[in-house]
């Protein structure tokens, strides 16, 4: 009888396939996160993350697409406790019997989104790798030199503390093998390999960003949300990538004032819109505190474009002046319904290489705006 079966227990510790493929899936999720960045970065959970390092964000799951039935539109068989009757409500969306056990589990739609913990640090790295301050120039004064050390070469001579053990041993192995006595023995000075470094100096210039936001009554909650998301990411990007960058905040409706960062992101205002007031304020600040000789200046203005029509001409003129003093001027318009705005129709005529504008129609386009303002100028 005993020959008809065998019981055994083996050492499975080297069987790592499940974990390896799990890692591959996680890599793919990361890729998917990258592809979903535009949707992701305007998610409330991030904007309201308040400095938390790890945040939970809904990420679109990696679907395995196939031909399948529409679960929501079809009938299913269920089982009650003996008392079920026609008309009983089993539940509301989502489906009461989501995938899991039960027959045909594989045919049922899973969740489209699942929560993923995201490291802000990592997210920022992915996001900001594509962004940079355009037209950055070295300014005469306050030029800052950053020196960095990079080990990038191997030499035969060097100081003992920089010895490259792996390469030294490899060299020894090679030499011994060629003399017909393979193995690691008799390390001679000839085998020694040293790491050596280069000093790199990165010039860094002072930069000033002027975050200008329309806080007038016409800016609805969507418009404000978008503008603030943009500035939220802009400030994080600048502070992460550039050590010496100053950001000042200007809020305006019919008049403009310089506000603190906290006020800028939290306070709501109302009233009409006169954008020129903000530009005047910006020029004033440049003249009194930030000389263009010492600073790379980047005014970025966000509005819904609903400006007092008679003010538009003044705005165009002031922008020309600002452009003279700054490296780039960015105008972002939050325009959900694709209406033709007075401000944009005036700005369309500005032909200046460092004037950039961008229209945001939906949440997902905040990243597009970031990219269009903070990217290298296109060649040609």
């Amino acid at each position: 009888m005993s020959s008809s079966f065998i019981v055994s227990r083996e050492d499975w510790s080297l069987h790592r396939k499940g974990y390896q493929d799990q890692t591959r899936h996680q890599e793919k999720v990361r890729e998917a996160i990258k592809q979903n960045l535009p949707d992701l970065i305007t998610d409330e959970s991030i904007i309201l993350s308040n400095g938390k390092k790890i945040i939970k964000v809904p990420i679109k799951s990696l679907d395995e697409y196939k031909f399948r039935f529409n679960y929501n539109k079809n009938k299913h068989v269920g089982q009650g406790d003996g008392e079920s009757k026609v008309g009983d409500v089993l539940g509301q969306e989502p489906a009461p019997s989501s995938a899991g056990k039960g027959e045909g589990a594989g045919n049922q739609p899973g969740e489209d989104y699942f929560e993923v913990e995201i490291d802000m640090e990592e997210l920022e790295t992915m996001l900001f790798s594509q962004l940079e301050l355009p037209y950055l120039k070295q300014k005469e004064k306050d030029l800052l030199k950053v020196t960095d050390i990079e080990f990038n070469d191997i030499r035969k001579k060097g100081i003992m503390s920089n010895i490259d053990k792996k390469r030294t041993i490899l060299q020894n192995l090679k030499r011994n093998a060629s003399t017909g006595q393979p193995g690691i023995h008799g390390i001679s000075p000839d085998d020694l390999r040293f790491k050596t470094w280069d000093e790199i100096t990165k010039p860094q210039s002072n930069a000033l960003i002027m975050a200008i936001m329309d806080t007038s009554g016409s800016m609805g909650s969507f418009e404000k949300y978008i503008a603030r998301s943009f500035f939220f990411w802009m400030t994080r990007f600048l502070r992460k990538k550039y050590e010496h960058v100053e950001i000042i905040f200007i809020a305006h409706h019919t008049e403009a004032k310089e506000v603190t960062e906290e006020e800028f992101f939290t306070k709501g205002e109302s009233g009409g819109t006169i954008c020129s007031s903000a530009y005047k304020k910006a020029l004033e600040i440049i003249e009194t505190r930030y000389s263009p000789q010492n600073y790379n200046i980047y005014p970025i203005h966000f509005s819904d474009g609903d400006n007092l029509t008679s003010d538009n001409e003044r705005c165009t003129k002031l922008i020309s002046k600002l452009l003279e003093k700054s490296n780039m001027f960015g105008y972002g318009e939050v325009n959900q319904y694709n209406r033709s705005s007075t401000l944009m129709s005036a700005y369309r005529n500005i032909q200046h290489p460092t004037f950039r504008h961008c229209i945001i129609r939906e949440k997902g386009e905040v990243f597009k705006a970031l990219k269009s303002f903070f990217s290298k100028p296109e060649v040609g």
Partner: protein
Amino acid sequence: MKILNVEEMKQLEKAIEKIVEIAKEFQLDFYPMRYEICPSDIIYTFGAYGMPTRFSHWSFGKTFHKMKMQYDLGLSKIYELVINSNPCYAFLLDGNSLIQNKLIVAHVLAHCDFFKNNAHFSNTNRDMINSMSSTAERIHQYEYEHGTENVEKFIDAVLAIQEHVDPSLFRKYNTDQSKKEMKNEKNTEIKTGFEDLWDLENQSKQTKKKDESEKPVLKFPNKPEKDIMWFIEEHSPILEDWQRDILSMLREEMLYFWPQIQTKIMNEGWASYWHVRILREMDLTSEETVEFAKLNSSVVQPSQQTLNPYYLGIKIFEDIEKRWDRNKIFEVREIDSDTSFIRNYLTKELVEDLDLYIFEKQGREWKITDKTWENIRDQLVSSRTNGGFPYLVIENGNFQNNGELYIKHEYEGLELDLKYTERTLPYLEQLWGKNVHLETKIEDKSVVFSYKEGKMQRRFL
């Protein structure tokens, strides 16, 4: 985690000996058994891959991760896994108690009996463990030769259509002649840019051939083809040899798994029916009896709203035995699959006894809408038809006389998930190399989805 010690291993072996003896007395007929005791991550790996030796792919890793997490959180537990092979491998979770293992050993013996005797398994490869192992090796070799990402991308596409095989037991593949005809066409398509001219010539040739054989081929394929995997492998004009090889290997794997998909309710019902009867014959201590009852109820008790295949299956088998005799259930396990099992043996009394119902979504609510027993039976049958997957056939592999692929969904009242349809068609195009079309129905109106030059179009007929 608890690990079985030597003494416990001995006890387990003794118990297995006894269980095998009882099972044989019950006329269960199984292959020699190999029981492997494994830690949880190995059990879950096998569960996710369906086979210990299967090839690597991220989708298995995703499933593994999900299953393992549910186990770690205490949400679900697999106690065993059994492989349809000769000898039959069963994997037991290290840390199972002796009584858990007794139940499982009895359960897997019945599974093995089912694999060995049910007609739908008669063509399955009983050496699939090794076949899958060499498939995995070959795929690994292709990764080395053609790049991991290229191979992965290709497998992504194949997996998207893997269920579309023809598992019928007496399938006859298209004759060599029809293959040859297609090969002619295929060659011209690859090698020249002058299909139109060549087509003319081919057409005249073909007409000649038709006249000779007196079998006019009107369309290609001449009958709608269910085996999309096979058809693409044979006729796609763009695939390289390694790609055709992967397609054919993954098709074999699907054909191996197909009978298990088709007999889920029966197979689980059969195994549950027998583990109860076998353990009744054993001398259990009173403690073991209590634990067995608990465990058994967690396996076969109805769960709210979802239909438990173990429970439905065992109930139907017990009912058949009551209405006929034990010989009858052996006969049923030999010839039926889930669809015929339900159609033939789910009765009005059982439907009422099990309190089955039909539910659907109305507005935002999921509601019980029907308790008519025939409707319930028919609904269950239709949900198990073709393994629960939409029935698709290739209508034309030379659509618009341009080598495009035209697939038809044999609509029987169940609508497709449109988003998934639109996302899957690009995979088909990737495999076929030309525009692909799929005809189905939305709200009883015929509609064709076309994926052309990277764009999805939807057109009502």
